[in-house]
């Protein structure tokens, strides 16, 4: 098992830069998520760690050893592909034992190890079946079996649940997480599904346009996004952005939003000009005594909560409120924002302004 360190890794395909100078560290035994929209470079990053693509520049350390330019076969890692890539001309046993055969292991030892792995994954009864007729879940298990049988330094998974039905995904993601906890292996997992990333990951890297936007534990990323992109990509519905022209000095604790004074966490980084006031929907409360008001334009019922969309002087805003509150479209309601949860962004470059609240998170990432 191993720590994986990425330093200034960059990948160009001709004139196109897929990954721009990225750095982060994956600790030993972590379940690590690479999250981002399609085309953000997350899969390329994973493939570089695995040795399927070689970085244009930068270093990759697995277990302290620099492997950046080494081929995949010399990195001692396992990879689970989205389409599973089970060898169609072999049966289940053949597929799982294939990585062991490359090491020249004795066939009796191979048999024993394959059966152990099959036991762990609960696929003993299908060992001698061809892979063609297997269900999606069983294919997934065989692909995992092929990955874990060799006891590699790390597991890399490229959207391994992407090919499964929604219903089965839930179940498989739990199984995957349980398997990880049992084996304690460093796992790097690529996904575009923020919910999956939050559920399963110990840590998340959020990427966009080949750039690492933020890196940290799910809760920190959710509460204190480093950029507007992260704030919007994570959370459903995403963080609200209220755009305003204004200023905040170093040490300032309030901003003026449409002439209403709003308290914010104590600022460390002053700014002036076009700013964005970021607030999560669940941190908005409805209070008719509040000076800041919005008009209801839509409500969306979600069972225990409802999402209410307001038209405010600074743009649209969604609030998550209890579903028993009766709210009518067209109604004007006062809005109160929990001052401890607010993030201010510089609207021009999209970065979060440092405050006492998010400083720890931003410095870390």
């Amino acid at each position: 098992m191993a720590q994986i360190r990425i330093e200034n890794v960059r990948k160009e395909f001709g004139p196109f830069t897929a990954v721009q100078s990225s750095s982060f560290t994956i600790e030993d035994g972590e379940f690590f998520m690479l999250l981002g929209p399609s085309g953000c470079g997350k899969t390329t990053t994973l493939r570089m760690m695995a040795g399927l693509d070689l970085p244009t520049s930068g270093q990759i350390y697995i277990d302290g050893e620099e492997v950046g330019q080494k081929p995949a076969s010399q990195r001692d890692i396992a990879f689970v592909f989205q389409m599973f890539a089970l060898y169609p001309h072999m049966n289940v046993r053949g597929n799982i034992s294939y990585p062991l055969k490359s090491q020249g292991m004795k066939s009796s030892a191979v048999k024993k190890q394959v059966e152990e792995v099959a036991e762990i994954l609960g696929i003993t009864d299908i060992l001698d079946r061809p892979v063609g007729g297997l269900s999606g879940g069983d294919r997934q298990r065989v692909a995992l079996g092929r990955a874990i049988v060799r006891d590699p330094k790390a597991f890399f998974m490229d959207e391994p649940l992407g090919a499964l039905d929604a219903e089965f995904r839930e179940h498989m993601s739990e199984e995957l997480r349980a398997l990880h906890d049992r084996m304690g292996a460093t796992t790097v997992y690529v996904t575009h599904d923020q919910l999956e990333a939050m559920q399963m990951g110990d840590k998340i890297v959020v990427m966009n346009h080949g750039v690492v936007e933020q890196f940290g534990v799910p809760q920190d990323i959710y509460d204190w996004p480093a950029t507007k992109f992260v704030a919007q990509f994570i959370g459903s519905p995403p963080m609200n952005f209220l755009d305003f022209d204004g200023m905040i000095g170093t040490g300032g604790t309030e901003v003026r939003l449409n002439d209403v004074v709003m308290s914010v966490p104590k600022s460390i980084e002053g700014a002036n000009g076009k700013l964005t006031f970021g607030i999560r929907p669940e941190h908005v409360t409805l209070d008719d005594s509040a000076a800041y008001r919005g008009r209801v334009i839509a409500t969306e019922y979600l069972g225990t909560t409802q999402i209410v969309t307001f038209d405010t002087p600074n743009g649209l805003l969604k609030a998550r409120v209890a579903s028993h509150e009766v709210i009518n479209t067209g109604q004007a309601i006062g809005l109160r924002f929990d001052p401890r949860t607010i993030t201010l962004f510089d609207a021009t470059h999209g970065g979060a302004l440092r405050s006492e609240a998010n400083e720890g998170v931003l410095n870390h990432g």
Partner: protein
Amino acid sequence: MSFSITEPKKGTKWFAGVLVVGYALITIAPLLWIIATGFKSPTDSISYPPKVIFDPSLEGYVNLFTDRTRATDDMLEAKGEPQTWYEQIARDQGTIISGPSRYGERFLNSIIIGFGSTALCMVLGTAAAYAFSRFRVPLKDDLLFFILSTRMMPPIAVAIPIFLMFRNLGLNDTHLGMILLYTAVNLSLSVWLLKGFIDEIPVEYEEAALIDGYTRFQAFYKVVLPQAATGIASTAIFCLIFAWNEYAFAVLLTSGTAQTAPPFIPTIIGVGGKDWPAVAAGATIFLVPVMVFTILLRKHLLRGITFGAVRK
């Protein structure tokens, strides 16, 4: 997987069946006629109206495999009783067998050259197609077009330069020369066909093998090749059929040692009248290897032809 199939009506099925059987009969009729002619006597073979029912005779086959000289009755008398059944057949025509014909040799040449060039073509073609399919090859599209363009010229147009080249290299009328020539001609077809088949194999299989600790060559050999078997088999059949039937180059570039069967069969006609049964016998035997090869690989061939049409 989504498709819609309507179960055809009984009448439609019958109609389709009749159509298919009818078409099969039409295509197979010339083949059956050739086989039948091989077993006719020379008289029956040219009788009019043509005979469908006839007394079978092995004359054609005896004439195909032997060289004979015409003899007078006295000479036949002096020879004494014929020793073998084929000698008897020759005697009945008033001839004496003077030795074996060169058909066997020509047939063997066809086998060596046909299968040799097909095998070489498959090895080179698979390697080239794999490279074109998987690697960044500079000027890939131009190269592929160039490869295809080598097939655009008719054999007769390139025969003279090839003849001159072969003469300087000492390849004229040699097995190696013909194998190289047929390989060169077939390679364009096999690279194009095989590239299509290899393109269809997801690259993830090889990547999985690379990660499982295999080298690029092992991944190619153990993972790509078994899956490309279908494509290789159907391409091999195409190559073999071309090399087997090729006539123009064979006539122009071979004479003594490396002549294949196609230029030889017509020469039978000239020996003492039009000996159609012998020609038909030669053609029948000539059909067998390709037929056997195709039947052996037919499962792959069918899958090969429909390859890529089915979404997995």
